[in-house]
């Protein structure tokens, strides 16, 4: 065990799996000598050379599309979008080529698309997006979003070993803010939900950075209520059983999602519960998400749209009092 930031855990996961499996290679803009915009790949080109750690042209469609090609030819590409926002430029290759290749042809595209997501640091409309729902709505793609350094490493390795294309959401706001113990060597964390904090009175469902906001709120509420925080970790596959079990224990649920509200991951979780656990509910299914607006830049505007612990706390209190 070593204490690491979330970002260090990602670098460590890449390094360890590249040592363990020579099929693994990295592609992305400025990921080589520069080590990537967020320094997630620092030192890797030095260790593994420029064929396995490739600086690419600014060409997101080609980054994703050549990864599909390399994957069907037997490699295990891990490509980085410099910011997850730019994945829109390679959307078609991801959704139509990577996502459907196995169903259509029997080939498989074992590849990972690393997506630095989320807001909270004045990134504005094009450096703060959370694109996961687009990919949840595209059959054939797995979508995972770890919230801790241990899971970041384990799920990244799990994603590399998965025989399918995996969208790996790494929230930028966790990179240096969150630290934790991380096992040495390689290990694959299963794509399942995790009870981040057990409780009996209310379930807060969250993933990625919002898990930490939810935990903060749960602590704040501790004197008055016993709040469970369910960290989804994986959005596709979605751990429906864990969600339904938690709701059946607590009877009340609040879903927190940093993405824009409409058709977000949280909408899917709410729809699931409303269909499958209706009988167990003792109150409406509450959601907190970013309203349907681009993420504004200004320090007074950005926190007005992002789900803050305050907004979560208020909704949780209302629900507990229901």
């Amino acid at each position: 065990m070593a204490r690491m930031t979330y970002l260090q855990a990602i670098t460590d996961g890449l390094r360890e799996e590249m040592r363990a499996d020579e099929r693994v290679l990295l592609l992305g803009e400025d990921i080589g000598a520069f080590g990537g915009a967020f320094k997630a790949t620092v030192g890797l080109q030095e260790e593994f050379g420029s064929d396995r750690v490739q600086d690419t042209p600014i060409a997101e469609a080609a980054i994703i599309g050549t990864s599909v090609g390399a994957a069907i030819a037997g490699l295990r590409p891990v490509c980085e979008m410099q910011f997850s926002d730019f994945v829109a430029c390679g959307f078609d290759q991801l959704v139509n080529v990577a996502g459907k290749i196995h169903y259509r042809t029997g080939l498989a595209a074992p590849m990972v698309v690393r997506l630095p997501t989320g807001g909270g640091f004045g990134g504005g409309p094009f450096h703060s997006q959370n694109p996961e729902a687009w990919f949840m709505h595209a059959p054939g793609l797995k979508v995972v979003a770890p919230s801790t350094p241990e899971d970041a490493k384990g799920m990244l390795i799990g994603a590399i070993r998965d025989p399918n294309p995996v969208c790996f959401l790494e929230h930028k706001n966790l990179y240096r803010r969150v630290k934790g113990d991380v096992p040495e060597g390689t290990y694959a964390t299963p794509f399942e939900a995790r009870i981040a904090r057990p409780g009996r009175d209310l379930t807060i469902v969250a993933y990625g950075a919002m898990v930490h906001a939810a935990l903060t709120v749960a602590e704040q509420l501790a004197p008055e209520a016993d709040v469970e925080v369910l960290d989804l970790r994986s959005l596709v596959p979605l751990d429906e059983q864990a969600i339904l079990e938690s709701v059946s224990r607590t009877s009340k649920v609040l879903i927190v999602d940093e993405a824009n509200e409409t058709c977000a991951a949280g909408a899917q979780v709410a729809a699931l519960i409303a269909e499958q656990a209706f009988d167990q509910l003792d109150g409406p299914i509450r959601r907190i998400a970013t309203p349907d607006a681009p993420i504004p830049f200004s320090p007074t505007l950005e926190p007005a749209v992002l789900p803050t612990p305050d907004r979560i706390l208020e909704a949780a209190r209302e629900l507990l009092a229901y």
Partner: protein
Amino acid sequence: MSTATRTRRRPEAAPKAETADDAPVDLLTAADHAALHELMLLTRAVEERGVRLYKQGKIPGSFYDGRGQEAIAVGATYALAADDVVCSPLIRDLGAHLVRGTDLVEVFRHYLGRENRLSRGREGNIHFGDRRLGVVGPVSMLPDMMVVAVGVAMAFRIRGEQRCALSFFGDGATSRGDWHEAMNWASVRRDPVVFVCENNQLAYSTPTSRQFRVRPAERAAAYAMPAEIVDGNDVTAVFDAVRRARERALDGGGPTLVEAESMRMHGHGAHDDASYVTPELLAAWADRDPLAAHAPIAVAHGVDPEALLRMVTERVDAAVAEALSSPMPDPAGATDDVFCVGEPQGLGAGDAPWSGFATAAIADRRQAA
């Protein structure tokens, strides 16, 4: 990249012909001409039958054929070695599948929406590829598969393998961004990929004049990529251009663009009467029919085209009959296999009928002895 490995795949009998002036015909034996002719006949026969089955309402969805362009896919794919990869044949490229040895019954089962090993009924018309034969089925979005082919080639290059990827695209597809990203990336990295542009004068109803101002082969210069224009109705010319492009790719020379000039003799799909094409233009191109053009060469090599046609027709008849009596896919499996479980199944080796490879194998064995 060791010289030994390279030599293994270069036929001893095939002197390196770097320009179009070298006589390509020398590289093709009588057996090659028989095979080429048969493959083109087979392409046409399968497509003719497909159109008929579609018009009879037996093939669901839509149907596309490559009438008049048979020489391109056949000639280009004929230049590939067994473990090269076709990524991907497009709607005019049935011939590429046939060269690689794709099972005819499976092709018709696929067209008809029956249970089959190519697509399991999940895909239709020309969207298929037998991965066991090193063929990657295309997507509709043009020309996405060029980018994927570059990735396949990148894998070959990184692993130091003497293999290349072959990718087809139409004149119209060159307008899309992915075309540029593929061209640029392959060129910067010197990936071993051969791009074959099928310039058939049209993109659906739109003539090339409204698609671009500079023809694709000339645009290759913008990527420092070697390019060549060939008569797409001359199967030996296409074969030879791709053969040389493949040599270059395996020699570390990177990608090549081969622009094969031809004409789409049918509508865009079986639903389209192509009334936007003048009869005069069609007539002029009909005189250059690739099968008719190759027939005398085949005959000169002792081939009997009539006999071949009879044989081909029989094969097609038998395949259609068998396909028509095949079961439909089980609806219970409609949502299976969205995700891969377990070890991915990769790309296998296809048929590589060109005699040059056999010669090389013999030379290899001789050298090893």
